[in-house]
């Protein structure tokens, strides 16, 4: 059995991994784990003794979690073009610097919208308006910092060429866009950056990867989304309670 990637394209880090693997022609079996159907908490969908999260990589007996670790592993094992994870001491440090900040200010924050607009309502929970407003303010503050401190005048976030950092960031921003807030409107520098990242990836790959999340609100409106099964509720309620 070759490389397997356990992904749900509704998840931002899963999309980053998918884009990277596909763009670099890395041969893998896609194992779709549908979060909405609670497959991550059911037996048989993820490798044994995995925490109930995606993405997961399985390479023979080697099982790996955390999108950043997976991206670095893939870039090293498949010797992808240098620019994705450059060997230079300082450039590589910039990528990790971005990813550290991203973990605090982007990850989590940018994922809240899927919960407030889709996942919580699907299990009959309403996230308080105050939390929604607070989240929006946090998103806006993060976008400002992203533009000013990380992108600046550069073409990409950590260097003049696209890196892993750009994939991770793009997918978080696309999550918010898909859930109804166009973060690129009124932010020409970010919009130009997005254009550059997507030009590297190619329109077809972007369309394929972003398709599911871009359709989510429409599916919600048309009542086409299955209510998550009861066994998924405890972890969902826990996640919802953690929204600041």
């Amino acid at each position, binding site marked *: 059995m070759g490389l397997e990637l356990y992904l749900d394209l509704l998840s931002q880090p899963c999309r980053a991994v998918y884009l990277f693997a596909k763009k670099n022609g890395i041969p893998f079996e896609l194992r779709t784990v549908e979060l909405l159907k609670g497959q991550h908490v059911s037996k048989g969908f993820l490798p044994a*003794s995995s925490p109930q999260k995606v993405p997961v990589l399985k390479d023979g007996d*080697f099982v790996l979690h955390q999108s950043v670790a997976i991206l670095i592993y893939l870039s*090293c094992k498949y010797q992808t073009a240098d620019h994705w994870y450059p060997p230079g001491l300082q450039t*590589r440090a910039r990528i*990790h610097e971005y990813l*550290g900040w991203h973990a605090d200010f982007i990850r989590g924050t940018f994922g809240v919208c899927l919960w407030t607009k889709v996942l919580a309502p699907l299990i009959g929970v309403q996230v308080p308006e105050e939390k929604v407003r607070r989240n929006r303010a946090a998103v806006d503050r993060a976008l400002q*910092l992203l533009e000013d401190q990380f992108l600046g005048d550069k073409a990409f976030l950590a260097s003049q060429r696209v890196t892993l950092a750009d994939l991770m960031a793009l997918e978080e921003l696309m999550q918010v866009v898909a859930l109804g807030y166009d973060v690129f409107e009124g932010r020409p520098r970010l919009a130009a950056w997005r254009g550059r990242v997507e030009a590297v990836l190619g329109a077809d790959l972007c369309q394929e990867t972003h398709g599911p999340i871009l359709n989510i609100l429409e599916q919600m409106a048309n009542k086409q989304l299955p209510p998550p099964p009861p066994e998924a509720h405890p972890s969902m309620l826990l996640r919802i309670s953690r929204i600041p």
Partner: protein
Amino acid sequence: MGLELYLDLLCQPCRAVYIFAKKIGVPFELRTVEVLKGQHNSDDFAQVNPLRKVPALKDGDFTLAESVAILLYLSRKYEAPDHWYPQDLEACARVDEYLAWQHTALRSSCSLVMWQKMMLPVFLGERVPPETLASTLAELDRCLQLLEDKFLKDDDFLTGPCISVADLVAITELMHPVSAGYHVFKTRPKLAAWRQRVEAAVGEDLFQEAHEVVMKAKDLPPVDTAMKDKLKPLVQVLL
């Protein structure tokens, strides 16, 4: 001017950087930045890190923030022994996996316990509802269980038989609730044994030295009203 490390040893990530730099013999100037005194907000410090956070590194004209970035930079530049951040593909991935996980899991639990159990009531005179603290402690417990079951398992260290930067990041995190009087190791013999091994590998003296500031945090005097007002928005987030 050689390498400068801007640190507040009250903060977990700063301690990890401090221990690592000392352990692998990095020649550096320590620049102490006292966050509780607002020193991270000074214009001088903003030149080093415009995001005004510690830890930060200045190496000639090159400035760098974020503890993981700093640890990996130091490891490479000063050619730390391989086990700290291995070259081997899978061994390295294990360290990367831990460093990524801890950032969104253990780190926030440990910070919250420290603040809710000690800093808020003692330092800021803020009442913390018992249910809030209980929920935070439950979350910490969940993270500790994952730490034991998923990372440590039956190995000597978090990512295998040898100590790595992952262990430094973890141990400095866990000392945070310990300094607030929540003894995470007392009820978890597996973690306690791991702690002994990490301390032994690092060296007792260096370990004590790095933790001197945070272990005395409970003796800090209550903050004055002016500072209290400044820290008010932080209080919101921490409850």
